[in-house]
């Protein structure tokens, strides 16, 4: 496929994804949270009882759908390949720390775009930090940063993650007593579109993201590294389509989906410095991982077990973030969270440095 076609495809995919994200808020998800990979993995951790923040507990079908959608399309396009073995424990730690950054900001890079599309100007501080983090990550990449190669693995190993998601779907539908769901009106966890709607939306976005290799981090990274705009075009398409659809929904429905300003934004705080530092940590961590949380879900669906481990790192990070009081709330960041982000940035820089300058010394 020519580059022109690739760009057209990713822009169309971005437009569709932006509309789906906006519609999911209309159909029940929290405002500006049609999709948020970090928030949804955090909600899923909570539903499994890994943390006990009662306001954010729900097995989000969007996550399950994303993995299924990627898996199905990868199989159809003969791109499914079980592989892994590229520094899995390092990826777990990076995933853990990326989540600490996301929960400082209150959203993954995907939700950062959706927050911008909803008029939440706090996300601009996040974006500045995010771009800074990507520049830092690109510095190490250019100097030779690598987590070393992956290897082919047995077919079952590549399919296990899809199996885990299937188990989550069963637990969501069966809702046994040991699974925790936020009480009605009990917080963001209680706000969700109907199960089937969320699942189908996830499948659609997962398939589109698999097809286009859409990645929120890759977009800015590739422009910085190679002046290559393809992935960023997808990112920008999501921003504008969600923005236009939010404006449309605000006009035609009684609810507000676009509210320009800093204060009073849904599931957000106004501390600019820490919004930026949280997304700095997320940006550099995701460059070192090779993709944003959305991309990790898609890769896990394609049989990449390193990405599977990364997702588990994200989920465990979310559990710790709530158990240790690191996650921000609408009231702002916590002292523990600030400390965790600073430590996280230091650890990520150490991981980057070692895998760039000392990677051959076992």
């Amino acid at each position: 496929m020519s580059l022109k076609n690739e760009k057209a495809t990713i822009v169309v995919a971005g437009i569709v994804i932006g509309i789906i994200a906006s519609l999911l808020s209309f159909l029940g998800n929290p405002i500006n949270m049609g999709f948020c990979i970090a928030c949804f993995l955090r909600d899923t951790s909570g539903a499994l009882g890994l943390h006990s923040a009662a306001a954010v507990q729900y097995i989000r079908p969007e996550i399950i759908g994303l993995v299924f959608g990627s898996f199905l399309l990868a199989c159809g396009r003969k791109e499914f390949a079980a592989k892994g073995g590229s520094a899995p424990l390092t990826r777990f730690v990076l995933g853990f720390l990326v989540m600490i950054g996301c929960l400082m900001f209150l959203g993954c890079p995907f939700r950062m775009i959706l927050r911008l599309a909803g008029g939440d100007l706090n996300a601009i501080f996040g974006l500045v930090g995010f771009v800074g983090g990507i520049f830092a990550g690109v510095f190490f990449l250019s100097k030779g940063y690598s987590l070393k190669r992956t290897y082919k693995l047995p077919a079952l190993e590549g399919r296990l993650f899809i199996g885990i998601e299937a188990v989550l779907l069963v637990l969501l539908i069966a809702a046994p007593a040991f699974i925790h769901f936020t009480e009605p009106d009990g917080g963001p966890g209680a706000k969700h579109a109907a199960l089937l709607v969320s699942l189908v939306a996830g499948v659609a976005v997962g398939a589109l993201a698999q097809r286009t290799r859409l990645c929120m981090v890759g977009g800015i990274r590739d422009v910085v590294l190679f002046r290559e705009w393809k992935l960023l075009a997808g990112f920008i398409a999501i921003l504008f389509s969600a923005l236009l659809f939010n404006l449309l929904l605000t006009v035609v429905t009684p609810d507000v989906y676009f509210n320009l300003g800093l204060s009073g934004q849904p599931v957000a705080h106004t501390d600019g410095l820490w919004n930026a530092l949280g997304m700095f940590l997320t940006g550099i961590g995701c460059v070192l991982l090779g993709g944003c949380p959305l991309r990790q879900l898609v890769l896990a669906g394609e049989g990449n077990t390193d990405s599977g481990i990364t997702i588990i790192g994200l989920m465990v990070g979310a559990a710790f973030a709530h158990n240790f009081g690191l996650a921000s709330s609408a009231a702002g960041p916590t002292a523990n969270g600030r400390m965790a982000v600073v430590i996280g940035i230091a650890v990520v820089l150490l991981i980057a440095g070692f895998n760039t300058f000392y990677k051959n010394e076992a």
Partner: protein
Amino acid sequence: MKLLDARGLSCPEPIIMLRNEMNSSAAAYQIIVDNTAARENVTRYAHHQGYQVEVSEKGGEYTLNITR
């Protein structure tokens, strides 16, 4: 002809590998990758740099011959 083994690496690493080699003086490169994303991205990058690319596939591995 400079030979580069980028099997098992995901983008952008294969491209950075090629770019760093292109900064030295060789005029022709052979790079082996094992996923379609790397194949497409490396091909696109080489075209951008004014090179021609020939691809051959064997057992899920792609050999890209990159020449001026």
